[in-house]
Structures are given as C-alpha cells and as structure tokens.
C-alpha cells in the first residue's frame, strides 16, 4: 500500500468518538459532521423558502388579490428572498466545502475545528433570530430582501421584525467570515505533502475563491446592516437627505456585497461541475489552469460591477460598470467551453449527477446570456425591476445553484453515507425539475419584456395571466421534484445500494478513503503526483496512465 505520513494536527477529543447520536452532533468539532449540519440546516431553510415561493406563485396565478392581503404578500416574498439568498445559498455550499475540502487535500481536519463549529452555531443562531420575526407583533420584514433605505428605516417601516431581520443576518454574516477564515487557512496550510496548489481539485479551488470573496464582501454587508440598525434605533441619519444623508449610499454598499454574493454562491457550484463532468466523461478536466484563472478572473471582476444593479438610478457612471459586467462573459465562457472540451471524445455516462450537471450548463447558459443583456444600460432601463430580471437571476440562482447542488448531492451522497441514491428516482427528480423549472421561469422573461414589474401582489393587465399560470404550474412541478428527491434520500439512506469506497471511479482523494470516511479521514493516503491522485492510484503500475509510477517500497516523503 502506498502511503505517506499524514500531516496530522493534534486531534481534539471528539475525533475518537463513534459517529452518530444527537449529543455527538451538538458537541462535534469534526469538519464532516459540521458539514452535514450545515447542509441539513441550509436544506431546511431551502424548503421553507420554497414553500414561500409557492405561496407567491399561488397568489400570482390570477390578477387581483386572492389568497392574502398586500402586507402578507410583501412579507412572504421578502422572507422568500431572505431565506434563499442570505440563509441557504451560500451556506449549503459552505457545508459541502466543510465536508469535502479536508478530504480533497488529504488533511485530517480543518485548521480551526472549534472556530468552525462556532461558525455553524452562529449561523443556526442567526437563522433562528430571523425566523423568530414571524412570531413578533407586526410579523417579519416586508421591505424586499434588498431592504433599500429609506423604506427600511423606522419612519416607513416600524416593527421589531425588521430589527430581528437585521440582527439575525448580521450574525449570519459574522458566521460566514469566521467560517471563511477557517476554510481559507485550511486550504493554504493543511495540504498533504505533494498536494501543491495546482494539484488541488477544482472543487477545492472553487471553495477557496468563494471563501476569499466572503472575506471581502461580507464585511460590506455587516457595515450596511450596522448603519441601518443605527438609523432605525438611534436616530443616525446616514440615509436621510434632509440631514445630508444619502439613500444612494445604501444601494452602493449593499450591492458592493450583493454582486460578489452571486459568485459566492456560484463558484463552488462551478467547482462541483468541474468534478462531476470529468469523472463521468472518464477524462481529465480540459484546461485545468485556465479553469483556475477563470475563477480568479470572475472573482476580481465581481468587485468592479456592483452598480449594474443601479443603472436605473441615473447616478452611476454607466460605461465603466457596463464594460466590466460584459467582460464577466469571458471567464464564464472559458468555463463552459472547457466543460465541452472535457466531454469531447470522452466516454460519457448519464448518471443523475451528470444529468444535473448538463442541466446546469443549459440553464446557466440562459441565465448568463440574459445577464449580458442586463449589462447593457439601455436594455437594463427597459427591463430592470421587471419579471425579466426575476427570470434572469432565477436561471442563475435556482438553475445554477440547485442543479449544481443536486449534482453534488448525487455525486457525494455515497461518500457521506456509504449508500447510493436511487438512480431511477434520480431520473424522475431530474426530469420533473428540468421541465418544472423551465416552465416556471422561461415565461417570466416574456411577461417581463411586456412590462410586468416584480414584487407586486396584484396586476391589472389581463394578458399577463397566461404566463403567470404557466409559471405557477411549473413552480408546483418543481415542488414535486424536490419531494421526489426527499423520498429518494429517505429510502436510499436505509435501503440504498452499498456504494463501496469509489463508486464512480473518482479523481480526488476523498474516493480513496472509506465511505463514510473514518473520523480522522484517512487510514492511508496515496502519493500525489498530479491533479488526479485517486486516478493515479487506481492505475498505479500502468506507466501510460499514471504519470509517476507509485512504488510501494519507496520513501513516502519523496514528494
């Protein structure tokens, strides 16, 4: 067996306990269990946010007010956006990163296991604070997830719900920063010998760049919430023009966080796709380095484009923000073409993870292309704040995020549990999701072009009805697809096929260890000589395939 000495840190007590049990999960500092906690919590938030989305679609299926009053509707769509963007999207991938990054770089744990645990518990605490706003007088915030001042100041929106919203999200922001410090340090400092930066799996790269973005973007969020809290509760006048304050300031700080947030959400997803497509094409990732540079290109550009959300204010310098936004198409295009290059002349298996990845490419393409439209100020003037924008960012967020997330779930579930998710149910899940999703959001482009504004409980124009009905039907079909997934999870975790250590012939180190991995991750580690250590290990002794012959007798530290 080819093994190297593990770069083991001093292992905290919890590592030696047997897995399982509630007390164990409450006290754990094991990155894998914390990852699972993140994923479950985020998924619960996703289900709640999804139910709110269905409520929105129910109300919009016909003109007029049917199911609820305007205030309830405003609360529902505000909390839908809040749950999905602030409390689910970035955290579910943080969960996957928590579980997988140490495995992928051959580490026994993360750099700061206790800070990591604290980050999770702060996140949960923040979620509970936000959710508690449903139970206070006046109910939760109803100012849209962007909470533009002065609408969100006390003069225009009273109620404790809004303050709980600010406090809860600020806590979640701090949790994100703490988690990012841990994951970034882990990736820089905990890689096993031989695991150079340019041999790291692309998922780990995606998480690294995503966590770096969190480090730079979340502080802006903390700032804007701190200012808003002071404005609401202590009479500060940051956003009130009569005292020299500025409503536009709020938008600038908010979107300085808000645009990078899109890439915080999507970069780890790119990472998942980068792992899944090579495995099911049985080829190395095409253009590894270009993929890494594209990550950094996207990350760098993402801090220079925020005001494309503010073209309609008439108060930003349009040419600069337009060209910067358009240029994001270049690194994104590189990614898409490199995925095709990976599949080209490959040997493709259409597993559910692969189907989800292909679905990802198609819907992300539509989301990306319509993003180009929105980077053009004159077109943005026409469609900004209409359903066109709603459709666009749901193609990125629901399309991009969810297809990639489910691809990751089907891909790594066997590693997490030792059992495979059912591929038969997986196909049903994919089919219903693909049809339901496109039905929901494609027609929103059309009704948006026709001028239907977003965030309205009621519309008076009859010809918008048909698109809204289709959208609602699609949303409920998407709901069914999620139920199929939950059912799949439920039966597979009990009776699913045994997976073995490496059901897909994976490339990265997590496929070398057992499923689920032992508490310290590896009993033995192969040497790392390329970006596909598990592949090399599987083909060891074959001089054609493994770039360096791994010799079991050789000094393990030769690196």
């Amino acid at each position, binding site marked *: 067996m080819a093994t190297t000495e593990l770069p083991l840190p001093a292992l905290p007590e919890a590592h030696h306990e047997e897995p399982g049990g509630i007390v164990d999960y409450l006290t754990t500092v094991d990155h894998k269990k914390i990852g699972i906690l993140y994923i479950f919590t985020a998924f619960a938030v996703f289900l709640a946010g999804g139910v709110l989305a269905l409520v929105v679609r129910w109300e919009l299926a016909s003109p007029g007010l049917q199911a609820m009053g305007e205030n309830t509707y405003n609360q529902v769509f505000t909390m839908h956006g809040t749950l999905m963007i602030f409390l689910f999207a970035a955290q579910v991938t943080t969960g996957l990163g928590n579980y997988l990054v140490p495995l992928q770089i051959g580490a026994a744990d993360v750099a700061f296991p206790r800070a990591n645990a604290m980050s999770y518990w702060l996140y949960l605490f923040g979620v509970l604070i936000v959710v508690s706003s449903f139970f206070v007088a006046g109910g939760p915030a109803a100012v849209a997830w962007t909470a533009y001042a002065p609408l969100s100041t006390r003069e*225009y929106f009273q109620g404790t719900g809004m303050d709980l919203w600010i406090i809860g999200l600020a806590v979640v922001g701090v949790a994100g920063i703490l988690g990012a410090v841990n994951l970034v340090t882990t990736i820089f400092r905990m890689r096993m010998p031989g695991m150079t930066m340019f041999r790291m799996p692309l998922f780990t790269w995606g998480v690294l760049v995503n966590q770096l973005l969190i480090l730079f973007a979340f502080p802006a969020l903390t700032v804007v919430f701190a200012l808003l809290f002071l404005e609401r509760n202590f009479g500060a006048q940051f956003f009130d023009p009569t005292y020299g304050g500025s409503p536009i300031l709020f938008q600038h700080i908010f979107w300085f966080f808000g645009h990078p947030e899109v890439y915080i959400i999507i970069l780890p997803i790119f990472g998942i796709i980068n792992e899944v497509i090579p495995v099911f094409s049985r080829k190395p990732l*095409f253009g590894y380095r270009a993929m890494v540079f594209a990550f950094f290109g996207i990350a760098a550009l993402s801090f220079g484009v925020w005001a494309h959300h503010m073209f309609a204010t008439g108060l930003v310098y349009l040419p600069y923000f337009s060209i910067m936004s358009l240029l994001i198409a270049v690194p994104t295009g590189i990614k898409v073409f490199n995925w095709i290059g990976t599949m080209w002349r490959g040997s*493709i298996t259409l597993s559910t993870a692969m189907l989800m990845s292909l679905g990802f490419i198609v819907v992300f393409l539509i989301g990306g*292309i319509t993003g180009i439209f929105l980077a053009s100020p004159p077109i943005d003037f*026409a469609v900004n704040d209409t359903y066109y924008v709603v459709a666009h960012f749901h193609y990125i967020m629901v399309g991009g995020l969810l297809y990639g997330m489910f691809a990751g779930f089907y891909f790594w579930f066997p590693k997490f549990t030792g059992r495979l998710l059912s591929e038969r149910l997986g196909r049903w899940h994919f089919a219903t999701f693909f049809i339901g999703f496109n039905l929901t959001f494609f027609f929103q482009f059309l009704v948006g*072009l*026709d001028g239907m*504004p977003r965030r309205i409980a009621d519309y008076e124009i009859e010809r918008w009805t048909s698109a809204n009905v289709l959208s609602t039907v699609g949303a409920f079909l998407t709901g069914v697809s999620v139920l199929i997934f939950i059912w799949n999870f439920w039966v597979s975790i009990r009776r699913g096929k045994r997976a073995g250590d490496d059901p897909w012939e994976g490339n990265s180190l997590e496929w070398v260890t057992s499923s689920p991995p032992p508490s310290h991750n590896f009993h033995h580690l192969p040497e790392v000589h390329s970006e596909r250590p598990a592949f090399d290990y599987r083909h060891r002794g074959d001089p054609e395939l493994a770039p360096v012959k791994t010799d079991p007798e050789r000094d393990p530290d030769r690196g």
Partner: protein
Amino acid sequence: MLVAAGCTPQSVTEEGRAVYGLYNLFLYIAAVVFVVVSGLVIWSVIRYRRRDDELPKQTHGNNRLELTWTLIPTVIVLVLFVFTMQAQNKVLDQSGDADVNITATAFQWSWRFAYEGTGAEVVGSPESIPEMVVPVGQTIRVKLLSADVVHSFYVPQTLFKRQAIPGTENLFDLTFEKTGLFHGQCTQFCGLQHPDMVFRVRVVSQGEYQSWLAAETRRGAAGQPGT
C-alpha cells in the same frame, strides 16, 4: 427557445427605438451563441456516450483552442459594448431644449405631475389613477422627484425607467411618436401599496394638448383659493 424571448414591445418613443434595435441585436447574437453552445453539449453527449470499458485518450487541454474561445467572447462583448454606448447616447441625450417640462413626483402610493410654468397639476391616489397628458412629437423633459422612499418611473412601451430618489433630481427626455394611452407603473418596491402606484400616459395631438392644458390651468387656478 431564445427566439421566442424576442417579444419586446415596440417602442412608442424616439429614445425607445434605439433600445428596441439594440435589444434585437443582442437577441440575434445570443440566439446564435445559445444554439452553438447547447448544440455542442447535446452533440458530445450523444456522440461520446460510453460504449465500452476502454479509457478514452486522456487529453489535458489545448492552448490554441482555449485562446480561441477566450478571444471570441471578448470580441463579441466589445462589439456589444460599442453598440450599447451608441444607443445609450441616444436614450440619454438632453442636448436640445425641451418643449414641455413636467415635474413628476412619486409618493407613497401615487404620482403628481406638475406642468412647469403653467400651474397645471395632476395628482393621483391609489384609488384614482393619474394621467400624464403629453403632446405627440415634442420633447418632454421629466424632472423626477420622490417625496418619501425610492420609487421608479416606468412606462413599458417607452422601454425606459428611472428611479425616483429622495433628495435627488433626475432628468430625462421622452419624445412620443404615437398618440394613445399607455400604461405606467412604479417598479421599485416602495411599501404596502406598491402595486397600486399605477399611472397612464395619454399622448395627444398638439391641439388637444393645448386645450387640455388651458382647461387644467383654469381648474388649478380655481381650485386654489388666493391665486
């Protein structure tokens, strides 16, 4: 599929025509890109399905190819940027003098349209939809204000909108080329009755506009004791 997304409403203003043309240019290029890329995806999935256990050739990349597909999108977006700037200059051009100056004030939850230098004023409420009456073929300069929170002035068939921001004066021109009654609405979420912030733009002939303005000015003067 994307071609179906082409149903932008025809614009009713001179400024909007530039946007309409630009949108269609984007749409044609987008359709080509979408068909080519998704075609390649579908083709490779069908053509390269796994048939046996033999490992395909393990290629790691191709610098020339990768450079090509870096340069092509770069050129496309630069071209789109040039056309964007041309259209933008037309949409935002305010070099000429305006024929009609209107101060539009957004408030929770309706609109006030004041006709500068005439005393004519139209004020709406969530229950009564206000109408902004303007002459066809003339340059209307709107000075957009907000009395409380951020709103957004949007008439879909002008293919234009602009935020009304408290403490800020936002100016833009609209030159209607067609008479008719057009739907307008606030698009920036502004609180409880945001969906009720509807207004209309009534575009009429020069003569009709003059008589409407005269009647409205008289009414304004009569309605305000002391003037």
